[in-house]
């Protein structure tokens, strides 16, 4: 079920009504309702893969209990590895099997011999990368004794399958989300209103910004040889806003819906395109994944304790794995590697934690230096997005080759004024609201009629610029 579908607009009020009708004191019944609703939500896409979520929940719940009872380190380690193997095994099979087979066959062909292994017709279960990492965080945290294993299976099922963030995150930590299933949730008017506002902004990002930018990004990327350099740059610009609007829009909707149910999810995006360097960008983009890798991969690998060499090695590992997490294609690996390369000068100069505050805090406009830094950071991420969007590595290189020609300074061939105006309106709103959790969080200063008129404007824009229901990009990851 898509957030931007009619089914969901029927589904959500029903679940919301039932949930608060049950009341916060009947916790088990509420958790059961969330679990059932989440399974319906997921099963709407393909009910067969519900068994995967159920199995994953059963395995990690049982291993959590076993870890709680077992004090022997060697046995605890075995239990942890069982969980890792089961979870990553599913992920590896569904997401990477064909990629590995193809890559193996290609390498044998490269060296002049033939290898015949058939690929399989595998359907990638939506959101498998997200819920796998979420359940893994539970087992690892229990193993590290940061979290007591839960004995409430229904609550655990609801945690794994929690529908607002099941298919595209934010990837919640068990330490943050799981305890919320064990305490009474109280309806809070301000929280609910804020949640609805965040949902509205998320839908605007998805329907108006992402889906409309997607149209032009697709046209330009799919016919890149026919366009000049400046148009190709615009194509990359459109994709940058497509992916940001799509993914951060989903996160906003997920966080907003969770607040309607009395849950607080972690922030996933913090205005990344206003970053002054690439390190800041990565502290603001897909925060739940970056911190997951930091805590469960970077730190266990030694983090930055072993000197500069280890820091660089671990940074590269994190970015390569992060790229690979996004999809079974070398384009994602190169995208990751490119970001690691961008990071390198900052690491060497030990300037990767310079810009930790909000850019131009309390001011309407950034300084010239800040503007230049933001523009440069945005530009290099744009180049990296070309690899992310391209169908193949050859496609990406060909795109960049055609872009970086003298035609980069010629007239743009595709110039949709309306869509660009909307993007401009979006950037301005994000800039003005950058001190909040999301852009329109702090609109309370407006009087109610003006505030409501603003909401109406967003809704009118949504209906005016909506096309066919578009799936969220991150579902495929």
């Amino acid at each position: 079920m898509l957030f931007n579908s009619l089914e969901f607009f029927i589904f959500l009020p029903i679940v919301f009504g039932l949930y608060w009708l049950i009341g916060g004191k009947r916790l088990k019944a509420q958790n059961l309702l969330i679990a059932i609703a989440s399974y319906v939500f997921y099963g709407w896409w393909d009910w067969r893969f519900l068994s995967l979520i159920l199995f994953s929940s059963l395995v990690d719940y049982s291993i959590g209990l076993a870890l709680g009872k077992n004090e022997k380190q060697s046995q605890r380690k075995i239990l942890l590895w069982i969980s890792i193997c089961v979870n990553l095994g599913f992920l590896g099979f569904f997401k990477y099997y064909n990629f590995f087979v193809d890559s193996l066959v290609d390498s044998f062909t490269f060296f002049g011999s033939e290898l015949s292994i058939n690929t399989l017709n595998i359907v990638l279960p939506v959101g498998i990368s997200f819920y796998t990492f979420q359940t893994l965080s539970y087992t690892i945290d229990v193993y590290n004794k940061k979290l007591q294993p839960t004995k409430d299976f229904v609550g655990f099922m609801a945690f794994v399958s929690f529908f607002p963030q099941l298919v595209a995150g934010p990837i919640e930590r068990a330490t943050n989300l799981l305890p919320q299933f064990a305490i009474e949730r109280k309806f809070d008017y301000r929280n609910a209103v804020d949640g609805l506002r965040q949902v509205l902004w998320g839908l605007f990002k998805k329907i108006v910004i992402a889906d409309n930018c997607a149209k032009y990004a697709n046209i330009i990327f799919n016919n890149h040889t026919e366009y000049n350099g400046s148009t190709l740059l615009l194509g990359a610009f459109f994709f940058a806003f497509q992916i940001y609007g799509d993914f951060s829009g989903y996160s906003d909707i997920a966080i907003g819906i969770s607040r309607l149910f009395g849950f607080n999810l972690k922030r996933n995006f913090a205005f990344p395109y206003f970053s002054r360097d690439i390190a800041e960008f990565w502290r603001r983009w897909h925060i739940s994944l970056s911190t997951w890798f930091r805590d469960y991969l970077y730190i266990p690998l030694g983090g930055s304790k072993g000197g500069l060499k280890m820091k660089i090695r671990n940074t590269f590992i994190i970015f390569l794995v992060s790229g690979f997490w996004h999809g079974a294609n070398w384009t994602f690996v190169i995208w990751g590697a490119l970001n690691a390369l961008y990071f390198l000068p900052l690491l060497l100069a030990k300037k990767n934690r310079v810009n930790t505050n909000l850019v131009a805090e309390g001011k309407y406009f950034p300084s010239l230096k800040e503007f230049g830094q933001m523009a440069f950071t945005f530009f290099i991420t744009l180049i990296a997005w070309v690899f992310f969007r391209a169908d193949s590595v050859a496609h990406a290189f060909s795109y960049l080759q055609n872009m970086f020609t003298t035609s980069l300074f010629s007239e743009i061939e595709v110039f949709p004024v309306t869509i660009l105006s909307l993007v401009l309106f979006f950037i301005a709103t994000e800039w003005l609201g950058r001190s909040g959790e999301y852009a329109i969080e702090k609109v309370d200063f407006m009087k109610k009629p003006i505030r409501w008129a603003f909401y109406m404007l967003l809704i009118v824009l949504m209906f005016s610029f909506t096309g066919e229901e578009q799936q969220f990009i991150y579902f495929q990851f």
Partner: protein
Amino acid sequence: MKKLLINIILFFLIAIVVGEVVVRLTHAIADIPQRTIDDHGIQKYFPNQDGYWKGGEHKWTVNKLGWPGELPESNDNLIMVIGDSFIENFMNPNECHQSAFLKANMKDYNFMEAGRSGVSLIEAMEISKQLDSLKPKQSLIYVNDEDFYESIVQVKSMKDITQLDIKNKTIRYGEMKAPGLKKVLYSWKLMYYFYNRFPLDNLINTNSKQEAATTNSEAEVKSYSTEINQLTEYIKQNYTISDKTLVFHPNSEQSIINICKDAGFKIIVLDSSNDDTWTFDHDPHWTCYGHKKAAEQISKDLLNSANLGAFR
């Protein structure tokens, strides 16, 4: 919770009013003319209506006879143009109607249109029968494969379309489908906008829709060839066909064309091969260009016949 619900309801009520104003001002949805059923059982439009097409770029009009488009200046040398939504042609301005293009190509003749979306072949024959009182030289009846299936109760029963019951050899006139609801829907523009943008059948599995939508295949024609033969036989016996020309849409099924030829109909088959600009991007109807091209082919065919009454 109570406060939230009250605010949500209030917000939605205001949103409905705002939405209605926006949809009307921007013509986000086309105005739909209201229909009636005349004394002969033919569904047509209330006369003298007009409204905007989606986007508000042009207006459609319904003439005093209850058919979309403009009436000819004179009924001398009259040629009738009868058909479904392609002839109704609300999506194009009046100057892009078949009658306008045909008149431009055949200045000695006058053209009058009688089009309504959903018209089947048998309904087109009924319409032509009513319009014979105007003594047209010819009637051009625009058809596609579906118009044959939709003409026969036993093949595709449709209550809102005039059909032939081939068993009893009787005409079953179409009924107005949910006229009250339609009136509400067409007047409450915001609701109609939602109804169009988010069709409820999207909720039904798309696979089953695709299976149900198999039409026009050679196999289907073969399986219904007896019924189509019975239909053409009925038409031959009950209507004058000597002054009727069937204008087949491009890519019509050859076996249906052959059945009609064998039954003695005059035929014009339109050809849009190597030209995919006849239709809109997201609408199978012809653009102004498509109408122009169709009219060019028809007028060429008509003018090539020395005598309009005996061509081909």
